C-alpha cells in the first residue's frame, strides 16, 4: 500500500532516552504514553473484572450469598464505569498513541505535553472513584447510567466524588481526542493522503470527533446531577418543572455515541489484521471509510432506543426504531468486507488472526441481538433483562476487548522487539473463547425467560443457568491471567527477536521501522509513495 522511501538517518540529535521514574512522569513520548495507557487499561480491566467476579459469585446461587444488595449495586455500577471509561477507552487511546504516529509517519503526537497530561489525570480520576467506595454509605450505586432521581435525591453523598471523577475522565478523553485529530490532520508525512491512511487511523479520526462532540455533554449532565443533588435545582424533578426522563435523553445523547466510540477503533484493528493474515488487500477500502462515517453520523440520532419504555410519544419511538435499524446497514458492510477480504485469500491462523475471526463472528452475534433490541415492541420484553446484558457483553467483551487483545498480539512484537510466547497466547485464546461463550451466551436465555438485570437475587427457575454463567465467568477471568503472564514475559523481552516486518503479509509504515520501534521514530518526515 504505502512504502517508506526515505531511510532513517540516525544521527542522534534527540535527548537520550530518559531513565527512572521521571521518564514516565514527565514523558512526552508517544510510545511511552501509549505504554502507560495500555498498562493502565489492563490494570483497570483486572479491577473491573474482579468486581464482575463479585457479581458472578453473588449470582452463583439464588438467595443472598456473599454481599449486601447495596454493595452489589455498587459493584455493578463501578464495574460498568471502570470497564467503559477505565479499560476500553484508555486501551484504545493507548493503541492510538502507539500506532497512529507510526502509521502516518509522524515523529510523535501533535501536542505531546498535553498528551502526558491527558494520561496522568486518568489514574487520579479512578483513584477518586475507587476511594468513594470506602466512604460512609459507599460509592455510586445507581448503575453506570446514573439515572436521576436515583442518583440525585436518593443517592449517597459520595455522588459528589463520582461527579468530579467523571469530569476528569471527560477532560482526559477530550484532550486525547483533540490530540488525535490534530495529529492526523496536521502531522501526516508528505504523500500520506487521506485515502491512503490505514483504516485504524481513519476509524480513530472519526472516533475522536465523536469524543469531542459527546464527552462535554456527559460533563454537562453530571453537572446537572450535581446541582440537583446538592444545590436545589430541579432539572430532573417534575415538582420544579423538570423531568427525570430529560436526564436520560441527555445521558444517552452521550451514551449511544459512546458505545460506538468503543467499537469503531476495534473495526480499525480488525481491518488491519484480517488483510495481513489473508495476504490480500482489504476489500472495499473506501466503502469501509464511508461506512465508518455513516455509523458515526447515525449514532447521533438513535439515542432514545435505550428509552423505549420511558413513555415517549409513538412517533418518537418509531423514529428512533427506524434510525437504529439503519445502523445495521453500514455495520453489515464492514462485516461483508472482512469476509470478502478473507475470500480467496491465503489464510493463516496466527494468534491475532484467531482473535480477529472470533471478533467477527461474536461481534456479529452481538450486533444481531442489538438489532432485535431495536425493534421497539420486542424491546418492551427485552429491556432491562439479561438479554440486554448478553447483547452488550458480546459487542463489548468479544467485540471491543477481543479486538484490543488481537491488536496487542499483532503489534506487541513491534513494541518489544521479541515474539511473545505463542503457546501461552494460543492457550489464552482457546480458554477465552470457550469460557466467554459459556459466560455470555446463556444470558440470552435467562433474559428471554424474564430475569431482570441489576438484581442481587433471583427466582429459583434461573438457578442452573446462572451457575453456568458464573462458572464461565470465573474461567474467563482466570484465562486473562494467562494474558497477564504473557505480557509480563514479553515486556521483559523474553523471547525470540523479530525482524522489521514481523508478519509475512503485513503492510504499512509501522512494519518498515525496526523492531522494537526506536524511541524516536522519524526525525524527518518520511516520504510516502
Amino acid at each position, binding site marked *: 500500500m504505502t512504502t517508506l522511501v526515505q531511510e532513517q538517518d540516525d544521527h542522534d540529535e534527540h535527548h537520550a532516552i530518559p531513565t527512572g521514574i521521571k521518564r514516565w512522569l514527565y514523558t*512526552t513520548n508517544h510510545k511511552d504514553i501509549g505504554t502507560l495507557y495500555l498498562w493502565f487499561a489492563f490494570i483497570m480491566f483486572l479491577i473491573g473484572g474482579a468486581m464482575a467476579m463479585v457479581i458472578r459469585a453473588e449470582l452463583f446461587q439464588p438467595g443472598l450469598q456473599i454481599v449486601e444488595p447495596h454493595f452489589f449495586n455498587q459493584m455493578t455500577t463501578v464495574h460498568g464505569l471502570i470497564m467503559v471509561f477505565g479499560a476500553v477507552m484508555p486501551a484504545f487511546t493507548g493503541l492510538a498513541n502507539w500506532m497512529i504516529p507510526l502509521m502516518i509517519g509522524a515523529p*510523535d503526537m501533535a501536542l505531546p505535553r498535553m498528551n502526558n497530561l491527558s494520561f496522568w489525570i486518568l489514574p487520579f480520576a479512578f483513584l477518586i472513584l475507587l476511594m468513594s467506595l470506602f466512604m460512609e454509605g459507599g460509592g455510586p450505586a445507581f448503575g453506570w447510567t446514573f439515572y436521576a432521581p436515583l442518583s440525585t435525591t436518593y443517592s449517597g*453523598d459520595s455522588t459528589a466524588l463520582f461527579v468530579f471523577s467523571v469530569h476528569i475522565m471527560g477532560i482526559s478523553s477530550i484532550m486525547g481526542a483533540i490530540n488525535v485529530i*490534530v495529529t492526523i490532520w496536521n502531522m501526516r508525512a508528505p504523500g500520506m493522503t487521506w485515502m491512503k491512511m490505514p483504516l485504524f487511523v481513519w476509524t480513530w479520526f472519526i472516533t475522536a470527533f465523536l469524543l469531542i462532540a459527546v*464527552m*462535554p455533554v456527559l460533563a454537562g449532565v453530571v453537572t446537572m446531577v450535581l446541582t440537583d443533588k446538592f*444545590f436545589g435545582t430541579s432539572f430532573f424533578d417534575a415538582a*420544579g418543572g423538570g423531568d427525570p426522563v430529560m436526564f436520560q435523553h441527555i445521558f444517552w*445523547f452521550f451514551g449511544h455515541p459512546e458505545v460506538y466510540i468503543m467499537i469503531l477503533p476495534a473495526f480499525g484493528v480488525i481491518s488491519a489484521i484480517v488483510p495481513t493474515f489473508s495476504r490480500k488487500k482489504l476489500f472495499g477500502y473506501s466503502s469501509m471509510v464511508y461506512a465508518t462515517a455513516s455509523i458515526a453520523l447515525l449514532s447521533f440520532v438513535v439515542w432514545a432506543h435505550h428509552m423505549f419504555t420511558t413513555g415517549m410519544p409513538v412517533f418518537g419511538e418509531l423514529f428512533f426504531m427506524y434510525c437504529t435499524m439503519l445502523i445495521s446497514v453500514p455495520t453489515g458492510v464492514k462485516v461483508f468486507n472482512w469476509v470478502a477480504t478473507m475470500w480467496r485469500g491465503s489464510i493463516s491462523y496466527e494468534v491475532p488472526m484467531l482473535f480477529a475471526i472470533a471478533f467477527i463472528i461474536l461481534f456479529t452475534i452481538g450486533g444481531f441481538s442489538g438489532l432485535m433490541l431495536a425493534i421497539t415492541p420486542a424491546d418492551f420484553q427485552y429491556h432491562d433483562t439479561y438479554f440486554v446484558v448478553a447483547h452488550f457483553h458480546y459487542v463489548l467483551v468479544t467485540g471491543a476487548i477481543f479486538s484490543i487483545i488481537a491488536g496487542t498480539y499483532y503489534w506487541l512484537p513491534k513494541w518489544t522487539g521479541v515474539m511473545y510466547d505463542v503457546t501461552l497466547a494460543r492457550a489464552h485464546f482457546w480458554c477465552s473463547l470457550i469460557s466467554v461463550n459459556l459466560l455470555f451466551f446463556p444470558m440470552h436465555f435467562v433474559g428471554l425467560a424474564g430475569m431482570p438485570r441489576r438484581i442481587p437475587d433471583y427466582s429459583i427457575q434461573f438457578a442452573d443457568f446462572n451457575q453456568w454463567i458464573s462458572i464461565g465467568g470465573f474461567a474467563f477471568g482466570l484465562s486473562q491471567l494467562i494474558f497477564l503472564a504473557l505480557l509480563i514475559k514479553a515486556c521483559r523481552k523474553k523471547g525470540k527477536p523479530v525482524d522489521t516486518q514481523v508478519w509475512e503479509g503485513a503492510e504499512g509504515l509501522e512494519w518498515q521501522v525496526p523492531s522494537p520501534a526506536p524511541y524516536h521514530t522519524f526525525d524527518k518526515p518520511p516520504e510516502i509513495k
Partner: protein
Amino acid sequence: MSNHSDKYYVPAQSPWPIVGAFSLFLIALGAGTTVAKIHQSGDPGWGKIVLIIGIISVLLMMFGWFRDQVKESMSGMYNAQLGRSYRQGMIWFIFSEVMFFCAFFGALFYARILSVPWLGGADNNAMTHEVLWPAFEVIWPLIKTPDGTETTAMGWGGLPLINTLILLASSVTLHYAHVGLEKNKRTQLTLLLAATVAFGCVFLGLQVLEYMHAYQDMDLKLDSGIYGNTFYLLTGFHGMHVTMGTLFLIVMLLRVMKGHFSPDNHFAFQAASWYWHFVDVVWLGLFIFVYII
C-alpha cells in the same frame, strides 16, 4: 499539508503536566468532599483546604507551563507545523466547549418545549395533569412551578441589554486590536486590548449586580424551579467562561506590554481572541433564548 518543514520538532519533557494532573486531582477531591460534607453537616472540613491547595497549584502549573512555552516560542524553537497544531487544537477545544453549552441549552429547550407543557397535560400526558398536577398552569417563564414555588422572570431590557451591547463592543475592539497586531500598530493593539479587558470586567460586574438584584428583590434563585435553574446554569457557566476569557486577555495584555508577539507569530493572542468571540456568540444565544423569547 503543503509547506512541510524539513525537520520535525518534538518538544522536550516537561514536569508541568504531571503537576497539573495532581492539582486537578486535588481540586476534584477537595470539591467533592467539600460538597458532600456541607450536605451532611454544613461544615466543609478538610475538603476546603484541599480544594484551595488544588486551585493554587493549578494556577502555578499554568504559570510555569506557559512561561516555558513563551520562552521556547520566543527563542524561535517552534516551526510552522507546531503553530498549526496549536491552532487546530484550540479550535477543537472551543468546539468541545460549544457542545458543553449544548447540553444546557438542550435542557432549556426540553423544559420549555416538552416537560413543562407535558406537566400541563400536552400530548399523551392528559392524566399527568389531571391526576398529579391539576392546579398547574403552563407559562414560560415558569414563574409558578408545579409544586407551587413562585418567582419572577428576568426581563431582557436593562442590565441584560446593556451587557449584550458591552460584549458586542468588546468583540469589535478585540477584532481591531488583532488587526492592529497584524499591521504592527502596537498602540492600537495595546489600547484596544485594554478596552476589551475593561469591557469584560464591566460585564462581570454588571452580572454580579444582576444576580444580587435577582436574589434580593425578585426571588429568582438557583432553586426556583426549572426557569431559575436554566437561567443560573446558563448565565453562570457563561460568566465563568467570561472570567476565564478575561484572565486570558489580561495575560495577553501584559505580554503585549512586554513587547511579545509579532504580526506572524502570535498564536496565544489568536487563541485568546477566538475564545473571546466564542464566549460572545454563546451570549447572543443566551440573550435570545434565556432572556427574550
